[in-house]
């Protein structure tokens, strides 16, 4: 059984994947380097189309890379596939299990593929789906299906878990209950690699996050570190009355306590260290220029701000910034 460098679950370097079709050539993954440590929950964060799924499917051994090196649990897919399959668990972005099989039967099926693993009832208990054990998969809600998908990934008692957008499309309560499942797994020492385009998910679950855009890692670190790079912990968001021209970004940056300023369609966002210092100065300056406020709010900095700062785009929608 191959064992890798101590403490490293996944390592890849120079990863590239090029999709060639008649009409276009797309570099979905474009020189991506990554190292996931054993026992951590690692998040690939990026907007739709950033190359997250392509990356995770290459790491899962489901897609061959165009070039680059991949090492998973110290093994390589071309040499140790059988062994690796026994040691990892996977939840794809979307799998529709057989509708006419019960939850328990589906888990029994997946359990039978592994040499060792959890009793199916235990895997069900991990995702709090015991009471649905006898129900047909076709009768489950979206959140329950997603938890079943995670249970199927867990039933082989994997050392390493891959989850591709595990909570996309779920209601807030289902998302929260799935987060609990994942937190409990990490507490048991399992390594988790997940992709998400939800900021809050990455912030709450992940020890470290790689922000991915256009097939590359553009920032890497713990959510706290990434946020700290913005130079402030708070954001002041405001908009001026319609028709007002306002100030330039440089003018805002000149205000006391402001470490960053951005103007876009929705208004102005200032990254600040101390709101109680910046706010009076801002109001005083706007008053002097005879600019009236339409709204103003302060909040904590999030990974969303990090992403916008790095790319000039929001994560969810791909609206380009209007900032010059």
């Amino acid at each position, binding site marked *: 059984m191959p064992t890798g460098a101590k403490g490293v679950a996944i390592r890849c370097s120079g990863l590239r994947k090029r999709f060639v079709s008649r009409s276009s050539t797309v570099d979905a993954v474009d020189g991506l380097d990554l190292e996931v440590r054993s026992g951590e929950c690692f998040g690939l964060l990026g907007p739709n189309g950033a190359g997250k799924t392509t990356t995770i499917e290459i790491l899962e051994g*489901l897609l061959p890379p165009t070039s680059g090196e991949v090492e998973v649990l110290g093994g390589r897919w071309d040499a140790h596939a059988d062994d690796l399959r026994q040691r990892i668990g996977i939840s*794809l972005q*979307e799998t529709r299990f057989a509708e006419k099989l019960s939850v328990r039967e589906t888990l029994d099926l997946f359990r039978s593929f*592994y040499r060792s693993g959890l009793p199916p009832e235990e895997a069900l208990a991990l995702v709090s789906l015991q009471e649905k054990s006898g129900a047909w998969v076709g009768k489950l809600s979206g959140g329950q299906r997603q938890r079943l998908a995670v249970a*199927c990934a867990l039933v*082989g008692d994997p050392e390493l878990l891959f989850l591709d957008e595990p909570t996309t499309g779920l209601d807030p309560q289902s998302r929260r209950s799935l987060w609990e499942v994942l937190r409990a797994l990490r507490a048991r020492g399992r390594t988790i690699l997940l992709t998400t385009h939800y900021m809050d998910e990455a912030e709450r679950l992940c020890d470290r996050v790689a922000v991915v855009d256009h097939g590359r890692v553009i920032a890497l670190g713990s959510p706290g570190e990434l946020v700290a790079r913005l130079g402030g912990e708070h954001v002041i968001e405001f908009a001026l009355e319609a028709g007002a021209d306002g100030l330039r970004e440089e003018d805002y940056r000149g205000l006391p306590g402001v470490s960053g300023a951005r103007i876009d369609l929705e208004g102005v966002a200032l990254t600040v260290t101390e709101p109680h210092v910046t706010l009076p100065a801002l109001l005083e300056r706007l008053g002097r220029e005879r600019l009236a406020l339409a709204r103003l709010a302060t909040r904590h900095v999030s990974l969303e701000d990090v992403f916008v700062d790095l790319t000039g785009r929001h994560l969810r929608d791909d609206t380009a910034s209007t900032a010059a």
Partner: protein
Amino acid sequence: MSRTGPFRTLLLSRLREFYREPEAIFWVYGFPVLLAIGLGIAFRERPPEEVRVDVVVAAAAPDAGATAAALKALEGDRRFRARSCAGEECAQRLRLGRTDIVVVARAGGVEFRFDPTRPESILARARAEDALQRAAGRIDPVAVAERQVEEPGSRYIDFLIPGLLGMNLMGGGLWGIGFVIVDMRVRKLLKRLVATPMRRSDFLLAMMGSRILFMLPEVALLLLAGSLLFQVRVQGSLLAVLAVSLLGAVSFAGLGLLVACRAQKIETVSGLMNVVMLPMWLLSGIFFSSERFPAILQPVIQALPLTMLNDALRAVILEGAGLASQSLRIAGLVLWGAASFVLALRWFRWS
């Protein structure tokens, strides 16, 4: 906790999915039997038809005795359904086609009234005259003996049952393998399965195993329905029928796998299956003999797997042939199946 092997759980899953789908059960098991019953009834051998004869009893009969004699002669013959009525009523019944012929007694003989453009009336005239002349004492110079042939084995239903069996084996292989696999691919279930340590051979063998298990009731039901409802007898050994059916099922499962090996959409595989099946529905002798097609087409028709299967099934079921006499067809089916399998595995797309 019970640990079962992946082949068994895969097979079990497939069986459960199948029997929990009432529609699938109907199309696989119910429909062919209904088709056999419907066609068997539509094309059944009819009993010899009665001839309907009206005899006119005139109020002032010139010869009441002759009428009575005529009626008696016809009534005594079970080929006739005779009734007597008044002249006007008889004419009306003839016009409306309720009787085939009207016999009017005349002095010294009878008069036949009928429409010569109606075949049944011409038949009625010949039969009625024959019966009357004999009743009156005619002696035929040539002795005629009759033997009516209506043996099981030569009827349409006998021809049909093996054809339906073959058609069902083809449909089952293509739908039961081809459609199911593409459906699993669309659902990304195939991809999810290969993301586990599952051996791909276990999966394919389980699919094949499920086909063989589904095939057994298919064959049994059709043969049973044929036997109970239409007295279709299996002349050859049941084991030989089973062996040929098994080979057909496996061979068409291979074809199903080939059809499904790359299709990414249900629409694609449905189209492909129709392209594969339609020529065989038409040409391979399900409902009528493939020999009706021109000689120039015969080499192609004889090379189709369903033609081989249908011909082998008919030989075993209707003629009581042994497997050895069918070795060429059996070899052909093996070749079709093996070639499909090899190509399907080479081109197969799991995701």
